[in-house]
């Protein structure tokens, strides 16, 4: 079997480019969700550059202007009396509609504009206080990203630390820490956050505190489970033999190995934090007005559902798209990084 003998001396070290690997990693990446996330992040970062209106300034005469693609809303009216014409004229000056033909006679059917159509200077229309909705959506992205980022950094960071500690030391420390985590997980988050915000007062900081206070428990639980499994492995024992400190083993040996799980969990929870924040703002226990927050915008618009649908539609669509994008990316990452859970 001469053919199977390999001349080891002849083997040259082959320089492998990493580029194909990186490309392969992005093969089958969810393009649309990733695009949505990029747009969302860019909008939040560059809000001042990409908007042309003030997000706060109230302009009552320009209230409830419909989106650009909506034309004039008109109704047919019969001119019945001179008084009626006066009335119509009054209405027309109010809505700034085109002038009616002064030659209209009693009995004529005329078209009266009750609401002017939108214009491209305000693509998504204006809200009940005359503020540009697109501008507020873009600034709202900034609010969402700050809250999601801060809550995940604080809650996720603390939870990971707790999880690593519990998994590393085991025994009594593990039992006590996990009992705390379970109790925290038993609380309905929104209820807890409402109470906290009521006591501390509504502000962005307090919303972040409230969400982080509950968020850590899930990380603690998941990371602890992973760490527990890793503790049985040889490399931990070897690290210990070589004299590494507890902290070093946790940070340099455990943490990198739980990273994939951590990244998946973080991605999957961005959407969740955004929905919780929107729910709190919707209930009036979140970001206080006039700061543009998507949940708050929905809340302000809910009185106008029958007359101005666009006020609630824009923030609703924004929340839905961003949350869906993060969820889909999280699912994709999970499949990529964690083949064990591929079926879920």
């Amino acid at each position, binding site marked *: 079997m001469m053919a199977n003998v390999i001349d080891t001396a002849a083997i040259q070290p082959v320089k492998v480019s990493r580029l194909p690997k990186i490309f392969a990693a992005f093969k089958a990446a969810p393009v649309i969700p990733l695009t949505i996330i990029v747009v969302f992040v860019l909008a939040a970062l560059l809000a001042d550059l990409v908007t042309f209106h003030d997000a706060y300034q109230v302009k009552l005469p320009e209230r409830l202007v419909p989106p650009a693609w909506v034309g004039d809303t008109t109704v047919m009216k019969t001119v019945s009396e001179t008084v009626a014409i006066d009335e119509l004229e009054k209405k027309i000056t109010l809505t700034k509609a085109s002038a009616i033909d002064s030659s209209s006679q009693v009995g004529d059917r005329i078209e009266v504009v009750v609401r002017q159509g939108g214009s491209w200077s305000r693509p998504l229309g204006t809200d009940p206080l005359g503020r540009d909705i697109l501008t507020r959506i873009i600034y709202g992205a900034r609010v969402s990203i700050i809250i999601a980022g801060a809550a995940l950094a604080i809650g996720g960071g603390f939870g990971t630390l707790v999880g690593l500690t519990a998994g590393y030391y085991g025994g009594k420390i593990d039992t006590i820490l996990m*009992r705390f985590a*379970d*109790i925290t997980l*038993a*609380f*309905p*988050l*929104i*209820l*807890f956050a*409402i*109470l*906290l915000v*009521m*006591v*501390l007062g509504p502000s962005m900081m307090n919303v972040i505190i409230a969400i982080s206070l509950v968020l850590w428990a899930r990380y603690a639980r998941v990371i602890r489970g992973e760490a527990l499994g890793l503790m049985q492995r040889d490399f931990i024992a070897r690290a210990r033999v070589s004299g590494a400190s507890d902290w070093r083993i946790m940070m340099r040996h455990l943490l990198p190995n739980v990273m994939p799980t951590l990244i998946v969990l973080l991605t999957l929870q961005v*959407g969740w934090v955004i*929905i919780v924040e*929107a*729910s709190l703002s*919707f*209930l*009036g*226990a979140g970001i206080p007005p006039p700061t543009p927050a998507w*949940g708050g915008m*929905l809340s302000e*618009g*809910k009185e106008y*559902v*029958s007359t101005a*649908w666009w006020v*609630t539609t824009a*923030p*609703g669509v924004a*929340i*839905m*798209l961003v*949350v*869906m994008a993060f*969820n*889909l990316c999280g699912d994709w990452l999970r499949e990529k990084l964690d083949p064990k859970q591929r*079926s*879920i």
Partner: protein
Amino acid sequence: MQRYIIRRVGESLLALFALSIIIFLMVRMTGDPALLMLPPDAGAERLEEIRHSMGLDKPLVVQYGLFVRDYSTLSFGNSLRTQTPVYDEVKDRLPNSLKLVGTAMVIVVLIAVPLGVLSAVCKGTWIDTLATGFAVLGQAVPVFWLGILMIQLFTIKLGWLPSSGMGGLDHYIMPAFALGFFTVAAIQRLLRSSLLEAMDSEYIKLARIKGLSEFKVVWKHALRNSLISVITLGGIYIAILVTLGILVEVVFAWPGMGRLLFQGIVFRDFPVVQAVVLMSAAIVIFSSLVVDIAYAYLDPRIRLQ
């Protein structure tokens, strides 16, 4: 089994204890709790009175004792807005909320289970794609916006359904569907994946070899085992329904606890908010206890652990 029940009851009591401690300390650490319990224009005498009744001049342990005594006898104090005992309002509204959540639960089971089975059986076909797309949507659409969209379509455009308040059966349709949507999506996804896993197992192969009809294989053998993964999370689903119920009640002006809570937030009525939050949390903790015990009863693997 007995040991399991004792452990779970202990855990629930611990959770309630932790909740009460957190609220107790939170209120006392951030300022004068007497100010939270009275309207801003209350006189110095009333303040002294409430300070005395809450025991604010006594040690913390005594204060906590008084706190627990008041809440376990359901005296939540007076509403700042109406000056009537909060308990009276809660008592009237609690059944309404339970009716809504109960209806939503029935809808969830009736839709989610067939949908999950259907998408697993028809894996890879357009039915599966549709059901999965529906699940992805269900987990991304905020429930309060869904409610608003439903009102826009079914009340304003079509005029089929009433948009607010309680009344006949037609008042339940929109709120209950909006409330159940998220949970349907979550259960559909979970059931689909656990069914697919079950269909690969040995006992299903055996059932097929035995010559059972496909219907029996799926609905009797595979589903029964897959449902366990859903029931495990039953407590969490109830917690989700109770929480989302608050938002749905606000959108549909449902005269329940959620709307009471919302009014409490708007009017900065702390006793009302505190009472609703405490009671809802207690309901969630209690129902997840019941679910877990029922689950242990159904599944010997848990019971005998």
